[in-house]
């Protein structure tokens, strides 16, 4: 597995750039990933999505369905893509440090 160094911290990641361990997440990770996910500046809206994903994951052990993410944050899917160009899975979940989405993707 590859390791990434950023601002003196190291992160272990897989080929797709997802964190290997949720516990390794810290705000610097978001700074490091944002560019590769097509994000210039992080806004409060970005953080709101990231925080919700993390809360939901800590409580439920899985990522929320898109519908739930939209409902709780109040952001329509279109807006989520405006915030995270590669979408809620590859974009937002990766930045939030959640495990890589699996299944028939």
């Amino acid at each position: 597995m590859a390791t990434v160094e950023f601002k003196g911290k190291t992160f272990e990641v897989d080929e797709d750039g997802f964190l290997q361990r949720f516990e390794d997440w810290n705000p610097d990770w978001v700074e490091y990933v944002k560019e590769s996910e097509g994000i210039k500046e992080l806004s409060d809206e970005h953080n709101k999505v990231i925080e919700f994903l993390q809360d939901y994951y800590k409580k439920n052990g899985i990522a929320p369905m898109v519908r739930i993410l939209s409902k709780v944050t109040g952001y329509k899917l279109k807006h989520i893509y405006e915030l995270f160009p590669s979408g809620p899975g590859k974009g937002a979940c990766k930045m939030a440090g959640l495990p890589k989405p699996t299944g028939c993707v």
Partner: protein
Amino acid sequence: MAKHPTPLLDQLESGPWPSFVSDMKHAAEQRHKNPRGTNQQIPEGVIDDLLGLLEMSFEDGTTHWKHGGIVGVFGYGGGVIGRYCDQPDKFPGVAHFHTVRLNQPSGLYYKADYLEELCDLWDMRGSGMTNMHGSTGDIIWLGTTTPQLEEIFYELTHKHNQDLGGSGSNLRTPACCLGMSRCEYACIDAQDICHTFTNEYQDMLHRPQFPYKFKIKVDGCPNGCVCSIARSDFSIIGTWKDDIKIDQAAVKAYVGGEIAPNAGAHAGRDWGKFDIQKEVIDLCPTKCMSYEGGKLAIDTKNCYRCMHCINVMPKALRVGDERGASILVGAKAPILDGAQMSSLLVPFVPAEGSYDEIKEVLESIWDWWMEEGKNRERLGETLKRLGFQKVLEVTGIKPMAQHVKEPRTNPYIFWKEDEVPGGWTRDINDYRKLHQR
């Protein structure tokens, strides 16, 4: 020449069927020779390494691709299937080996120019290997690296006016039979429906927003040449309402042996002289046909429109003029709760113009399933869990006998409270006044 010895795969080069191994070896050689001077953007040895990796799987009987893979292009949540091999040091050419899905034209008609343009792009930015086509219908490009994905997407959309197909929990690429383009059975313009729905629901196709995957397929008639009833959550199947058109003179020609039955489909074996009674009348599932005094008659009221008689005598029998489609829903493969074919939801719907009647049914199903469907629950499973009655309610369709093959045999029947005089609120004390404990 070959980079890795492939004794097991080599055996698959013999025999009459086109050998994928020979094709791959040829393509590998072309990549090395590079006769057109292509500026190859992924490893020259990609195909050699794929053969090597496959040979290794043949030896040890197990796959050598790592689990999953999440890659894509900005703006879309699907379209690319990421893949990494688990022996990247031994087979660096396939360390990244992503699959790109391209939305195919309805009915899979192409011009050589167009395919050549696509091949030029894929030779440069991918492995040059394809799958024509994936089961869902897409043109499949097999094998490229992550940095090439946006490059490929840019050229596809800007130069070739070509978009990606679907993947993930979304509307997958719709597909259809070749319909009216070259089939006299087509009751609906399957290609136009497929094309129209693909364009109409681009957002659903590119940005996953469903509980799970959802597929649409369109068959021009009940023969099911694109298998919509088995391979799509929303199956649109052409049919007709009025009489089958009978050309009695042509019927006589079949009986007289001048025209081969089934358009000669069984010519490979001697099945004897065509016997209309045995091969058509007696095989009709509803027994609604007769052939007396040299005249064929069909009692339309009792015809299921199974296509058998038309299939046997295509020059004598034609589908009716009052055409439309049936909508069936819920087909899926076994995981999780068992395989399903689609169930009849709308027996007959007009299928012309902008197809608003069909879209209305589809969108009301989506509204409901997107809200009620559980995570990774196919529509067919939601139907099982919440009941077929529910989908009738959300689509505003009245229950009718055609909705079932047979009525239920168990008596566990739910009633709505307002259907029952007095409702559900009862006081046990009132009951006790008449019935002592």
